[in-house]
């Protein structure tokens, strides 16, 4: 493991993850379909997870990998809640486009 890191270099991992993270952000910003927004958020989280792993290898320290489990679990829980909310929205207005959520404003 270690030598791979030395070959490639931690920076590249960081760039990769940042790129992924930004892709996630742009996804959140530009897509209107709630499901896809969820997925973009997932991309963000997973980018971070990947970075965690990379760092933990870099530091030769397992805490980072443990943390990944935390964040996965949390992400799962979040999505579960999110989907639940989405379902009830779909029940109410029959659409999952977040552009329809404009009753509350001003």
């Amino acid at each position: 493991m270690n030598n791979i890191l030395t070959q490639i270099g931690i920076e590249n991992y960081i760039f990769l993850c940042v790129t992924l993270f930004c892709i996630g952000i742009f996804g959140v910003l530009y897509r209107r379909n709630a499901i896809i927004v969820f997925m973009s958020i997932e991309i963000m989280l997973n980018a971070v997870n990947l970075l965690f792993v990379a760092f933990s290898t870099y530091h030769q320290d397992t805490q980072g990998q443990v943390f990944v489990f935390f964040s996965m679990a949390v992400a799962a829980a979040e999505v579960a809640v999110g989907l639940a909310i989405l379902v009830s929205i779909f029940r109410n207005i029959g659409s999952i486009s977040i552009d329809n959520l404009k009753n509350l404003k001003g």
Partner: protein
Amino acid sequence: MTTLIAIVGLGILSLIFEIFDFRKAIIPVTIIGLLAILGLTVSEFNSPESYYNNMIVVSKFSVSFSSLFIVLTIFLIALSHNFYDNHQSKLSDYIAIKIFLLAGAVAMVSFGNLAMFFLGIEILSISLYILAASNRVNIKSNEAGMKYFLMGSFASGIILFGICMIYGAMGSFDIVEISDMSQSAELPIWFPIGIVLVTIGMLFKIAAVPFHFWAPDVYEGSPTLTTALMSTLAKVVAIATLYKLLSAMNADINYSFQIVVVIISIASMTVGNIMALRQVNVKRMLAFSGISHAGFMLMALLSLSTSAGSLLYYTSAYALSGIAAFSVILYVCKNRENEDIVNFHGLGKTNPLLAAILTASLLSMAGIPIFAGFFAKLVLFSQTIQAGYLVVVIFAVINSIISVGYYFKLILAMYTKEPNETRTAKPFLIYAVAVVAILLNIIIGLFPSLVLDLLA
């Protein structure tokens, strides 16, 4: 530590009660339980200690803030009796969720490790998403939940990324180690970036400009009790955590970072107050006032080393008056389709006591003397001037003047308008909560040292 465990236990207990159908007993039991836990927590005040190799660190700071959270939760649960009386079947869920939320809150202020911090904030957030959307049939509630969820998880992503960066820089999640290392001269650039990202995430939670957009919508859409919870408990937790985080990370050393805080704080005050002026929906108005108060609280971050006590004081003052105000709102807007000011017309005649309480809490928020809000502002001003940011104080003053404008809109509606109909019901718990909350507010207003000296 025991606090945390006890709280979780209590949450589970309330779920079990549901199974055995002791629905009636849930609220009393939880309240009693929480009181017991409060005692337990307070007893830990003078015995700072850390558990599970610094996962949880019990300090004066954590204890005092957790006690505040517990008190607030007690109020909120007491209020929920009347609030949920027409869907009893889910009562235990609501209570349980609130208690778990409290657990998250406590975890957040007493974390010794970023993992704990992350878990805490997620527990808090997720419970809040659920509560916000808890009124399934009401599209507004759904929308509020959805908006909060989307942005909240986005913010969590940012926080997570920040934590990751910090980890990358320090190779550890342990606060103590991190702060030790942060003293050393050369730090990788990731570390400050990480701190900033985490800070931004927390700023979102306390709804500071420009991360505040969610607050008004979510506050308006969510069930009123949830709004109360968000505007009091959630906000307080977030600011306390941010404070702890930054003081642990020695972020106040950096001047340009303080400039950012200054700008954000001024912006929050101003935007919050200006926007609140034209609101007709009371919850929405309080949301904006909450934003401005977030701005005030941020002033505490300008003198990290000294302002723990004053932050505690400000948050308690704010939260208590918020609780009092919301309990009146709960009473007034029960079984109404909205929370517009119209509903408050003539409250001064139909129900002088509650009107007086609401007035008092609003005056406290506006910072009129003998109410705690005044001293809260005073101590913050004093510290900020000491820190050399007179300009912030000037803005704060101007904003306090603006804020009077909309607080008084409500007071005027209560006293000068004719009542549209009379309310007969006099739910005991709401009265009790309102009175106790405002009394506490006045007491700490008259004897600020009670709170101020805790963390001095």
